[in-house]
């Protein structure tokens, strides 16, 4: 069948910088092409240029959608094209809908603009497509505002908006990156179903090889704006030709391969948490509700081991991390650290213990003060605790985490994401803590950077005899780093066991459903071309 989307020697540049350098491909109706690449590879620019959403960019080459030249189409033609023949679903469903308007009205508006349908017909259409993408009770939910929808439901609503116009091509730019694995699996299944049902072609952009492997027929690997590899998914996975593809695949944390065995840790635990609970109160007076974010959690962490904590959003894992280092006050329960009960300890006495309890945060971009030189940020905890020569020690720490100590006076925005996380780790290590709590430390990073940070953490752990609590939603990452794993759901630990036990013979049904939802990189599991 002839291609519904044809791209030839596409080049997109901003100013003098070329983000996409001569990419060509065809996409036939009903087929799915995965575009995979790390940040800065030009994959989002490529996706945006297909709808001419690249404002201020210089675009050359050919883009033809269902016979229309996107690059030269006059404005009215372009508007009919956008949504009508090629629709786009964006990465962040939280911000991609208008917060002020009802979800159904937004879909109806787009439908009316393209079809000129009556208000009533458009509203009926909105309910119909919302129902089709699996929004329960669509009639009623169409009248809700976006903030009343969960992340997964918002992404369904955006897909519904696209679906209403029955486009020939759907461009999905990281459609599941912001979502939990179980929700991700549902959205990907929905996209596959819709493709089979409507004959729509799908261009799926993702940084996650696993997502592409399960949902695309072909894959195009982008690196520095160039297509370094292009072929059927199973072939690329089995025998990657480009060296970059091989590196990328090697860096992906594998849920199916265990971390090299470490000697089991015995002896007195460093941290013992008993029946820990933290409530949040919300709602209007008289109807105030108490929501337990952490609901009676008991576990211990042995000296020198890594305890992985996995869970989906809202499971209470971040609250737990904050409770352990007493950034949050527990509602009840006990936190014993090296024999001291931290719960209810006055801040003045706690301060001396704080040096032993440090935390690495998810977003190194926002957890470092943007107006302070990074060296000063690393030296700050040393100053607070009255250590001698903080600046000198900070330089040594920067060197230890693999950064040039000469960059002491640079500011956070001058570093890459991975480098910033290294700075965050240096700051956490400044006081030589005994327990390091890492809350999603590699979530914001590319896979190759992720691998480097995980190696750094492992080296530091051996060298400094650190005890780690590693909180993440990413099961593959947790498998790579943990000795034992706790699975959290709705504020409780549903399963706590050795890593291999949890991943290979999970006892709890929820753990099994989580594991099933994770996309795998197994070429045998991929549907044939």
């Amino acid at each position, binding site marked *: 069948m002839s291609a519904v989307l044809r791209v030839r020697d596409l080049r997109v540049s901003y100013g003098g910088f070329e983000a996409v350098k001569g990419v060509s491909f065809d996409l036939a109706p009903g087929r799915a092409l995965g575009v995979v690449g790390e940040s800065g590879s030009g994959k989002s620019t490529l996706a945006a240029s297909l*709808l001419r*959403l690249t404002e201020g960019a210089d675009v050359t080459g050919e883009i033809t959608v269902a016979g229309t030249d996107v690059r030269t189409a006059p404005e009215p033609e*372009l*508007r*009919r*094209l*956008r*949504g*009508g023949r090629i*629709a*786009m679903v*964006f990465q*962040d469903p939280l*911000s*991609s*809908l*208008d*917060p*002020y*308007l009802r979800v159904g009205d937004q879909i109806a*508006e*787009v439908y009316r*603009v*393209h079809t000129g349908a009556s208000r009533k017909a458009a509203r009926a259409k909105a309910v119909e497509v919302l129902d089709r993408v699996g929004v329960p009770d669509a009639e009623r939910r169409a009248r809700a*505002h976006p*903030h009343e929808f969960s992340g997964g439901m918002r992404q369904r609503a*955006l897909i519904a*908006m696209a679906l209403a*116009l029955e486009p020939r091509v759907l461009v999905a730019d990281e459609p599941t990156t912001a979502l939990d694995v179980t929700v991700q699996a549902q959205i990907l299944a929905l996209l596959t179903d819709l493709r089979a049902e409507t004959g729509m072609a799908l261009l799926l952009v993702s940084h996650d090889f696993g997502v592409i492997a399960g949902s695309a027929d072909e894959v195009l690997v982008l690196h520095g704006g160039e297509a370094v590899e292009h072929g059927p998914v199973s072939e690329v996975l089995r025998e990657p030709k480009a060296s970059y593809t091989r590196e990328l695949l090697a860096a992906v944390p594998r849920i199916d391969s265990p971390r090299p065995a470490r000697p089991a840790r015995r002896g007195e635990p460093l941290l013992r948490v008993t029946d820990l609970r933290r409530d949040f109160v919300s*709602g*209007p*007076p008289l109807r105030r509700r108490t929501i337990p974010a952490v609901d009676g959690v008991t576990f211990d962490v042995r000296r020198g081991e890594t305890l992985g904590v996995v869970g989906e959003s809202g499971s209470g894992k971040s609250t737990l991390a904050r409770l352990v280092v007493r950034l949050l006050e527990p509602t009840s329960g006990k936190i014993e650290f090296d024999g001291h009960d931290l719960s209810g300890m006055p801040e003045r006495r706690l301060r001396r213990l704080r040096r032993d309890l440090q935390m690495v945060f998810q977003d190194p971009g926002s957890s470092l003060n943007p107006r302070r030189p990074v060296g000063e940020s690393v030296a700050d905890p040393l100053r607070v605790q009255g250590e001698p020569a903080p600046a000198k020690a900070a330089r040594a720490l920067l060197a230890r985490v693999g950064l040039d100590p000469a960059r002491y006076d640079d500011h956070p925005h001058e570093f890459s994401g991975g480098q910033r996380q290294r700075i965050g780790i240096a700051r956490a290590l400044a006081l030589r803590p005994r327990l390091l709590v890492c809350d999603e430390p590699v979530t914001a990073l590319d896979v190759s950077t992720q691998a480097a940070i995980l190696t750094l953490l492992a080296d530091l752990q051996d060298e400094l005899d650190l005890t780690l609590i590693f909180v993440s939603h990413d099961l593959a990452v947790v498998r790579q780093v943990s000795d034992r794993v706790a699975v959290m759901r709705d504020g409780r630990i549903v399963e706590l066991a050795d890593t291999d036990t949890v991943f290979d013979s999970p006892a709890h049904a929820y753990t099994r459903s989580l594991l099933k939802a994770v996309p795998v990189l197994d070429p045998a599991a991929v549907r044939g071309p």
Partner: protein
Amino acid sequence: MIWFLLRRVGAAVVVLLALSAIVYALFYLTPGDPAVLACGRGCNAERLAQTQQKLGLDDPIYVQYWHFLEGLVVGRDYSAGPDVDHCAAPCLGYSFQTDQPVTAMLMERLPVSASLAFGAEAMALLLGVSAGLLSALRRGRPAERILTAVTLLGYSTPVFLIGLVLLLVFCAYLQWLPFPAYVSLTRNPGEWARNLVLPWLALALIQAAVYARITRAGALETLVEDHVRTFRAYGLRERQVIGRHALRGALAPLVTLTAVEVAQVMTAAVLTETMFGLPGVGKLTVESVNSVDLPVVVGVTVLAGTVVVLANTVADLLHAAADPRARPA
């Protein structure tokens, strides 16, 4: 929603009570005997004692304040012997210099000030929002530079200078407009507007400059938001994208700002009214301060406070109405 409303109104009442108490204490604890001031020229010991009794100044301060609050709710009588002056609720006090209840004096001038303030505010919003939007949409082009220069000029020029220039140009040289004299809206709407257009403009220019800057910043921010991109990607015209999806977000901070600016407008109105000779509350304030007519000053202050608190409460409610996320569950 009902709880939200009750809480806001409750808070407003508490703020107003605190405000009136502070104002009352400030004015009646300052040195100088209000009775001497009220008793006026040709005062002797007997008349002074009489005035003191009539004004209730022989009572302790908290009893006086209580009477003041009582007067607000049910009205009160000022009496010394057979001489009774009734002051109906809401009674803000009694001016013995002019021999009138303060409330009546304020009510008489309020339409003038309200005409001035609402008209100027409407004009400021119209000018400010259009200038702000235009400069956001024409970012980096000459139109934006000119608008930025004009708004900065408007913001930094004092209202009395703008007023004088306007009077000189339009009334003295061009003679397109009469020298402003207040004509009631109900009597002749055309004359009302023709007389007020210059005071409106003088007062609006400063406000418009602030609104323009805020609108421009808000619009620049929302124009690059993800949901705006969504509707662009679904083939809406730029006009529809801006009108339906960007404007609301850009103007949301303006609602709050307008309420805060009410206090600013009232201050500027004092100057404007004096300059254009309009018999409004601002002019009354200046007169009563000059003649140390304390009850009037207290009344004006309480009225001004009420307007500010009211404006902020309305802004909160409007904000909740405009933004579904700000609505309590």
